[in-house]
Structure formats: C-alpha cells, structure tokens
C-alpha cells in the first residue's frame, strides 16, 4: 500500500494538470446529469400540479335515479383520496323571463342548479362572483345580459310541467368552468361536446328541492356529487393519471351502476402526461448527449497524458511491478479523480438547481433530486475509473515494455475505419430520419382516456447515429488530410512557419491521431452546443408565436364566455396612449352538423393592422389573399382542414352552419360559402374553428356584439394592458392580457414543456464544455510536447519558430473542430426539430439561429484554444530546468 500512497502523492504533486483535466470533465458530466435529472423531476411534478390546479371539480358523480344523495355521499366520502363532496341539483328550465328595463324580456330555455352554502368554499374556481350577494339566487352573467336583469330584479322561471316561480336576483356570477359543469357525465366515446347553456340560475339546494317537489317530468332533473380529491398524487403525470382513473373505476364498481363519474382531473392529467413524455424525450435527446460529451471529454483528457502514462507504466514494470499492480495504481488514480470530480459535480448541480429553479419557479422534487444525485455520482465515478483504467489495462495487455516508450506509434487504421462504420451510421441515421418524418408517424402516442402510452424510442437513434457517424467521419477526414495532404498542409502553414513548413507538416502528419482527437472532441462539443442552442432558440421563438396566437395581438381584451364587450369599449381603447391600432372581433359558437366549433367574426378592414397574420396560418393561400377573399364576398368563410376534408368542401362550396340568433337565443341555419382552409388564427383554439365576416354574422343573427378587441401597441404591452384595465368597467369579467404575460403563462403552462431551466443548464454546460475542450485538450496536448519544444530550443529554435509549430496545430484543430461542429450541429438541430415537432406549438417553418450565443460560443472556443497555445508558446521561451536536465 506504501507504493500506492507514494504513487498518489506523486500524481497529485507532479501530474496535477492531467488529474485536474479529467476531474473537470467528470465534474461537468456529474453536475449536468444530476442537475438535469433533478430539473426534469421537478418539471414532472410541476406539470402534475398544474394539471391538478387547473381543475375546479375533480369528479362529478352523477347519481342514478333512485339512489339517495345521502347514501351516495357516504359511499363517495369513504373512498380513499376523497377530501370532500357537495350535492348539486341539476334541473331544466322551459323558460326564463324577466320584466326588466321596462319591458318583458324572454331568454328562452335554461338550467337551474341547486347548491349548498359550502359549495363555493370547497370549489372556489367554479363560480366567480361579479355583482351582489354570494348567496341566494345567483344569475349567470350571460342570462343577466339576455334579460337585462340586475341585482334586485325579479326573474320568472318556468320548470318542466309548467310550474312557475318568481325569484329575486341576489347576485350576478360568471361560470369559468361551464364546459365541465354542464358536461354529459358518462357520455360515450366520440360524443361531441355541446355548447354550455347561457341561461343559468343558481339557487340554494333547499329552494331547488322546494321548486322540484311533487311532479317532475322524468329526465328533467339529476343529482350530482361534486368531489374534491386529495392533491397528494404521484409527481409523474402518467402515474397520477393512472391512480385517479383507477380510483374512479373503483368507486363506480362500488356503486354497482348507481353512479357515473365525470373524471375531470383525469382529463387534465391526460394532457399533462403527453407533455411529460415529451419532457422525457427532451431529456433523452438534449440531455444525454451533453453527459456523453462531458464523459468523452474526460476520457480524451485522460488519454492526452497517454504517452507519459505509458512511459511511467514501463518504468514501473522495469522496476518489477506486476501488471496487476500497475493496473491497481491506474484504478486508484481513476477512483481519486472520480471521487473528487463527482463531489465537485454534485456541488455544481446544487448550485445550478438553485439558480434554475429560482428562475423557473419550479419546486425541487426532493426524492427525484436525491435519486439523480446518487445516479450521477455513480456514473461519474465509473466513468473516471474506466477513463483511466481502460487505457492502462489495454496497454498492459498489448504493449511490451519497449513499445510502451513509443510516442508516435504505428499508423494503423482503426477497425471502425476499415469497416466504414461512419458511413454506415450516417446511412442508418438517414433511414430512421426519413421513416420518422414520414406521414402518420407520431413519436409519442397518448390515446385519450387509455392508460397505456407509447413512445417510439428508436427515433432517438437518428440524431445519435448522425452525431456518432459525423464525428467518426470528421476523424476520417482529418486523418486523411494530415496523412495524404502533407503538401497542402505545408503550403497552408508556410505563412506561419516559413522554411519550417515541411517539417511542421511532417510533424502534424505523424501526430495526426493526437491532433485529430482534439479536433473531434471540439467538433463533438461544438455540435452539441450548436444543436442545443438552435433547438432552444427555435423553441423560444415558437413560444412567442404561440403567445401571439393565443393572445391574438400585443394586448387582447376579452369578454367572459360569449357575453358582449361593453359598447364603445373599442373606441375608448383606441384612444389609450401607446395604442396604434385596434380591431373588434366576434367569438361565437356554431354547429356544423352535430359538431360545435368556435366561430370568429372579423373585420377584414382593421384586422391586419391590429395583429400579425402569418402566411403559415392559411393553407394554399397567403394571409393577404385569405383576407381579400373574405372582403370580396360577405358570406365567405374559412374552415379548418379537418372540416374541409370531412365535408368534401371545394372553394365556392356551400356550407350551412347553425348559429344562435338574438331574437330567440335558438340555433338557426345560416349559409356560408367556403373559400379556404385556416390552420391557425389569433385567439383561436388549436382544433377546428371558423373565420367569417363579422358584419355578415351580425346581420344574420341580429347580434352585432363583439367579444374580443385586439390591440397593437408601440409601447410596452404590459403597461398598455394596465392602462386598458383602468377603463374596463369593474366586475365586468373582461380579461385584459398582454403578450408578455401570455408568454410567461405559456412557458410555465401545461400545454408546453418549460424549457427555460433546461436551456440555461445546457447552454451553460455547452459553454463550459467548449472552453474546456478547446482549452484543456490543446493545453494538455501541447504540454505533452514540452520536451520536443525544449529540444528545439536547445537546437536554436527561436520563440517565433516554435510559435509556428504551435499555431499551425492549434489553427488546424480549432478550425477543423469548429467547422465540423457547426455543420453537424445545424444538421442535428434540423433533425431534432423535425423529430420533436410535437413539442412545438405551432411547428416551426425554419430554424431560429441564436446569433449572439453562437458568436459567444465561437469566442470562448477560439479564446480558450488561443490562450492554451499562447501559454504553450510562453513556456517554450524558458524550458523547465527538469526537462533540460533530462536531455
């Protein structure tokens, strides 16, 4: 053991450069794996929390006729995970009317719901109080608008069976979750959603029972239990989904047909688990290569001291050390750097966690974080032991003592080069890529409502094989240039080396393995950095496009649901400082067959000035042509691709929709003429919708109200939004949102994976890797030749002669590495963006190039390389005495 200790001491004192190089590589790998793993653990938990938080009522349990609410409540509340439940009575109204504003207003059919006094405290997001009291008779805002009713108005409700009652309005409310509140519980798969009712009245449950006492026509009432579940769910959305589905099924089984469950929380988690799978893929596609590069870098740094290590091994063996003992010394060295590197890496990961979690407002998931820390530590330790141990073991097995002293070695072609594995890998990558971007291919398959999900991990081989194949091809080209292009190399280095050009080119030819190793590792780190940066920039720019689409414009002003914006609001907004253009838009619902879709009524005159329309929003026509088409025909309509295909629409085809008319609040047929396909539209949902002329819609329905105003501004959008909030009538339910607020919402939202934490981690790692790769690989490579430079100095070489040697090699390695890294990085980014199209919303039409970051990367790569070369040149001016004495 004394030898081992003495050896370690010697290594730390004399070979600290080599040791610290490997340690840095291991620390980066460990830090990156741990931080990234922990980040994804937190992102998963965040997605689950977001999904759970977005649901106002977790379960809606519809009780079958004949089952008592008390029994059902007892059954539900004994189910594990249930926190509480409230009984809600659902009834129909044949008519809702009011003698308001001096005349009789009749809103037509509606719904009447009975709720308990504790309902809104258990489900605070279900009802939003706008005006008046929070208890008693509460009228939905749309109904209040239809009836011109106010707090204190007396409304008349007609129940099926002609029972009539008059109620005093105590408060006006908004129903933010009307879709789920009025869902058809237990609807068969494929059932198309219906528009939630406008005319809704809420009364205390006791009043509701009183109104329905006695004869009630069958099917006109139902009772639901609205259930709140514990939010102690697994952090992974898929696991959480499975659990809530399993619990709901268990409860349905206990009811034995006595109840059906509307599993709202499962629907929300169903969406989140797709995002979680994409997050997993991003980890695989963007995170794993970073860790691989860091470990490779550590191995290359370990190998850069190979010549010296082989000599040391030869000396040990001459002095009688057995191969086993020599190997043990190498393994101890590996374990030492592995342990130190892992320790530093875990410290870095903790730091990165703090910075990135603070920046993204993610809460770390302690157990996931701990697991990743342990995994990363083990990976780092193993990688270090292998990086140092494997070359030592290989040399011990294959080299004699005398050949161990060789510094140049035989120029044999490696097996992969003889088998053309580089070309094979690139070919296979192309095949997988072409298959993957073909039609009907989905990398992530999450069938709605089905527990099982599927991810096609074979797709991962396309970028992996491209990366590996391109690195090997770079190796082949670099070796070929140095081996066969000695004349060309000599000619290109002549400006730096003068008459020594031939000698320098010959030296580079003989050291082609060493130089190529440095070049390839710079290419690998460069391609990782470029692909990551371009992918992330493209993702960010698509988030802006998404925000613009979702928000509609710099600032959007939207009425709640389909209720109208106050009259004259658009004109007031136009007069707000900083506003350059506004357009008012209708947002209605229309039936095409039995399918309910959103309909946007626009003004072709003002729309384009208030928002940005991309040609990519439309199919086959430009944005300008689409608007022109609408402007030239009053009943023109743009429909979604799916609708155009389903109904066999051709330009000019008649399409009949059903729209709600103002006169009777009933849906009536309205003819339109199809003029084109729309893919995306400001404020429109991702699925099917229509775009038509607002004037035409207003004319045929008798309702000219607008639901949205889009605003363009030349000032800070959030400031303009604040100013507009000041002119919006209080408690009107109108939502004003700026694009920057929307962007913040999207990047931490449920429908997209938050990449900002990953981005900052990756871009930081890429910077460190690039600096380490070019700086340390060159520095250690040049340090290995200090003896050669000392000899040259002894022979009379001047600093400028030696600088010629150093600069020629440095420029070759840096230029080759940067060129290959850039080309491969851009190719990789293209492949990643195409393969992970599902993560983009909407898919990008071209890559976004982060010029500033890439210039910074170039600067750090070149800067580190130049610093290493300058250091090497400086050290040649006064060779170390120990080297001179050794000559």
């Amino acid at each position, binding site marked *: 053991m004394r030898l081992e200790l003495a050896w370690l001491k010697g290594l730390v004192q004399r070979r600290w450069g080599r040791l610290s190089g490997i340690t840095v590589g291991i620390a980066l790998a460990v830090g990156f794996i741990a931080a990234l793993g922990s980040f994804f653990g937190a992102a998963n938990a965040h997605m689950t929390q977001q999904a759970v938080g977005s649901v106002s009522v977790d379960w809606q349990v519809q009780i079958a006729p004949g089952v008592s609410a008390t029994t059902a409540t007892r059954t539900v509340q004994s189910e594990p995970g249930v926190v509480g439940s409230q009984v809600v009575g659902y009834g129909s109204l044949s008519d809702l009317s009011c003698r308001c504003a001096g005349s009789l207003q009749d809103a037509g059919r509606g719904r009447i719901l009975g709720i308990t006094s504790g309902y809104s405290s258990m489900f605070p997001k279900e009802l939003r109080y706008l005006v008046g009291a929070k208890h008693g008779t509460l009228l939905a805002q749309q109904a209040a608008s239809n009836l011109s009713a106010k707090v204190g108005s007396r409304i008349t409700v007609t129940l099926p069976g002609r029972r009539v009652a008059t109620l005093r309005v105590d408060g006006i409310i908004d129903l933010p979750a009307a879709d789920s509140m009025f869902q058809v519980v237990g609807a068969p798969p494929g059932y198309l959603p219906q528009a939630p009712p406008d005319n809704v009245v809420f009364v205390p449950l006791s009043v509701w029972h009183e109104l329905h006492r006695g004869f009630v026509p069958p099917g006109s009432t139902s009772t639901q239990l609205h259930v709140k579940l514990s939010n102690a769910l697994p952090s992974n959305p898929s696991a959480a989904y499975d659990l809530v589905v399993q619990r709901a099924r268990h409860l349905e089984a206990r009811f034995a047909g006595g109840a059906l469950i509307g599993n709202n929380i499962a629907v929300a988690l169903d969406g989140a688990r797709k995002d979680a799978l994409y997050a997993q893929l991003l980890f695989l596609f963007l995170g794993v290569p970073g860790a691989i590069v860091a470990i490779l870098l550590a191995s290359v740094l370990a190998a850069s001291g190979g010549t010296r290590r082989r000599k040391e091994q030869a000396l040990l063996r001459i002095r009688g050390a057995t191969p086993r003992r020599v190997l043990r010394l190498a393994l101890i060295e590996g374990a030492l750097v592995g342990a130190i590197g892992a320790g530093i890496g875990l410290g870095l990961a903790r730091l990165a966690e703090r910075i990135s979690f603070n920046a993204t407002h993610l809460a770390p998931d302690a157990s996931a974080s701990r697991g990743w820390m342990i995994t990363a530590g083990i990976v780092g330790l193993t990688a270090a032991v292998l990086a140092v141990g494997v070359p030592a073991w290989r040399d011990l097995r294959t080299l004699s003592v005398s050949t161990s002293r060789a510094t140049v070695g035989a120029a044999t072609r490696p097996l992969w080069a003889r088998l053309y594995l580089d070309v094979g890998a690139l070919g296979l990558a192309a095949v997988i890529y072409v298959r993957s971007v073909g039609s009907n291919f989905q990398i992530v398959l999450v069938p709605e409502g089905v527990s099982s999900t599927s991810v096609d991990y074979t797709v991962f081989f396309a970028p992996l094989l491209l990366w590996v194949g391109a690195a090997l091809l770079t190796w082949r080209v670099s070796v070929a240039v140095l081996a066969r292009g000695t004349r060309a190399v000599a000619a290109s280095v002549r400006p730096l080396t003068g008459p020594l050009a031939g000698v320098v080119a*010959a030296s580079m030819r003989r050291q082609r393995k060493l130089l190529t190793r440095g070049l390839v590792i710079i290419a690998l780190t460069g391609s990782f950095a470029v692909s990551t940066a371009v992918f992330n920039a493209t993702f960010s720019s698509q988030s802006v496009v998404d925000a613009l689409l979702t928000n509609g414009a710099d600032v959007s002003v939207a009425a709640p649901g389909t209720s109208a914006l106050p009259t004259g609001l658009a004109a007031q907004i136009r007069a707000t400082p900083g506003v350059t253009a506004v357009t008012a838009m209708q947002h209605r619902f229309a039936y095409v067959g039995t399918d309910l879709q959103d309909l946007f009524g626009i003004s072709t005159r003002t729309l384009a000035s208030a928002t940005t329309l991309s040609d990519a929003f439309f199919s086959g026509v430009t944005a300008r042509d689409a608007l022109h088409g609408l402007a030239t025909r009053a009943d023109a309509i743009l429909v979604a691709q799916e609708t155009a295909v389903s109904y066999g629409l051709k330009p000019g085809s008649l399409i009949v929709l059903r729209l709600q008319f103002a006169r009777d609040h009933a849906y009536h047929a309205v003819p339109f003429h199809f003029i084109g396909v729309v893919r995306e539209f400001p404020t429109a949902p991702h699925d099917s919708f229509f775009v038509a002329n607002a004037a035409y819609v207003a004319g045929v329905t008798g309702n000219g109200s607008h639901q949205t105003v889009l605003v363009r501004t030349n000032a800070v959008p959030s400031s303009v939004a604040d100013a507009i909030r000041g002119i919006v009538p209080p408690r009107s339910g109108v939502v004003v949102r700026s694009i920057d607020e929307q962007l913040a919402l999207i990047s931490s939202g449920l429908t997209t994976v938050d990449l900002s934490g990953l981005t900052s981690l990756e871009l930081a790692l890429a910077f460190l890797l690039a600096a380490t790769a070019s700086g340390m690989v060159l520095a250690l490579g040049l340090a290995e030749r200090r003896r050669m430079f000392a*000899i040259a100095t002894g022979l009379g070489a001047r600093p400028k002669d030696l600088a010629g040697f150093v600069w020629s090699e440095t420029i070759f390695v840096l230029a080759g590495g940067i060129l290959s890294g850039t080309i491969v990085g851009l190719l990789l980014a293209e492949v990643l963006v195409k393969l992970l199209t599902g993560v983009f919303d909407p898919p990008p039409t071209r890559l976004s190039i982060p010029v500033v970051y890439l210039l910074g990367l170039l600067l750090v790569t070149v800067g580190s390389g130049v610093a290493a070369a300058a250091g090497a040149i400086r050290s040649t001016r006064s060779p170390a005495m120990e080297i001179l004495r050794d000559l």
Partner: protein
Amino acid sequence: MPDVSGGHVGARVLVAADRVSMALGAGSIRTKVIDDATFELRGGEHVSIAGPSGSGKSTILHLVAGITPPTTGAISWPALGPASSLRPSQVSISFQGPSLMAPLSLLENVELPLLLSGVREAQARDEAVAMLERVGLLEVVERLPEELSGGQVQRGGVARALVGRPKLIVADEPTGQSDHVTAARVVDLLLEVASSLGSGLLIATHDRTVAARMDRHWTVHDRVLKSEMP
C-alpha cells in the same frame, strides 16, 4: 568586436566564464550544482570534461552552449557574439539523452538546425543526407527515432550537431550508447569536422580513450571545475 561573420575563428576565445555558479531549486531545497567555475575555450581547441555522474558536467555544457544562463558570475562568447545569436549557426549541442524529436524522421531531425539557420529546404536536405552518410545512417534516414537503436539515435544527435558547421561543438557523452568501434568512428567524425572548421570542441565523457584524444582535460568534482590550462 566579436567575429561573427563565419569562417575560421582562429585561436580566439570562443567562450569565457568568470566565476560562474549554477543553482537549482529555490528556498530550502536550493542546491548548487556548479560553484565558482572559471574557464576559457578557444577556436581549434578540443577539450574533454570528465567527472562522476551528477557532478555537473551537463550543466557546464548547457552553460557553454548558452542554453541556460548562470545563476551568478559572467559568461561570454567573445568570438561568437551575444548569447541570443549563438544557436544554431555558431554553437551546436549533442545531448546526452535520446533527444531526436519523436514526430520527425531522422532526416528531418538532422535538417532542422539548417532550416532554423535559414538554409533553403533543398540544400538543407542535401547537407543532412550527406552528414547522415558520414555517420553511417544513410539506410535509416526515413525512420522515426522510436524505430532506431540507442546508438543510432545518439549518432543521429551527433550528425544534427555537426550539420550546421558550428564554431563551437558541445557533445554530452556522444559515445555512451555505442560499442568501441562505433564510438571511435563518432569521435573521429567530431574531431574531423571540428578540425576542418577550426571549431572548438567540448566533449563530456566517462571514456578515458575518448578523453585521451582531446588536447585539454577538464574535471568536475563536488561541483568544482578544474580546468587544465594550455
């Protein structure tokens, strides 16, 4: 003014040292390897330097060749010019250890001093080949140092030291790796080149037969140089 214009330097002083000392390390581990040495070597003189291993012979050779400056004392090259212009054309050195540059062939190693002196590439190659022929290494000119035997490497080093026709030749144990016959050939060559050029020659050696062929003999013992004055 020193004569640095080329050609014979006659019997002028090539190198003169006045009470030079050399110390290695710093602080408590600072060790003197040469103490207070005074010597002089003239053009045409052939000098051997002997002494036990570690006595400081190589250090004196490095001082003479201008590779390392002394810690104290003064050293000058009156007939050759300032220290910065000595190598490769005025002074050359053949190192004790295997000092051919690993990634260069034997021929490239030998032509290197010529190229460093500004000789044109074709001429440098011709002269290097001619010198390698004289040391009996013509057969192996394209080989890498790691493909040569220890003796061949040492002779390659000598060829590299002589090829530039220096006025002062410094050789550190040039026959240490050779058999007697080869050693004699190497010393013959060193003496022949030095005589033809009128150059000074300083050889460190343990071999008494080699030392006996020199005009003067220096010895180093316990860091102290004793130079036998002519």
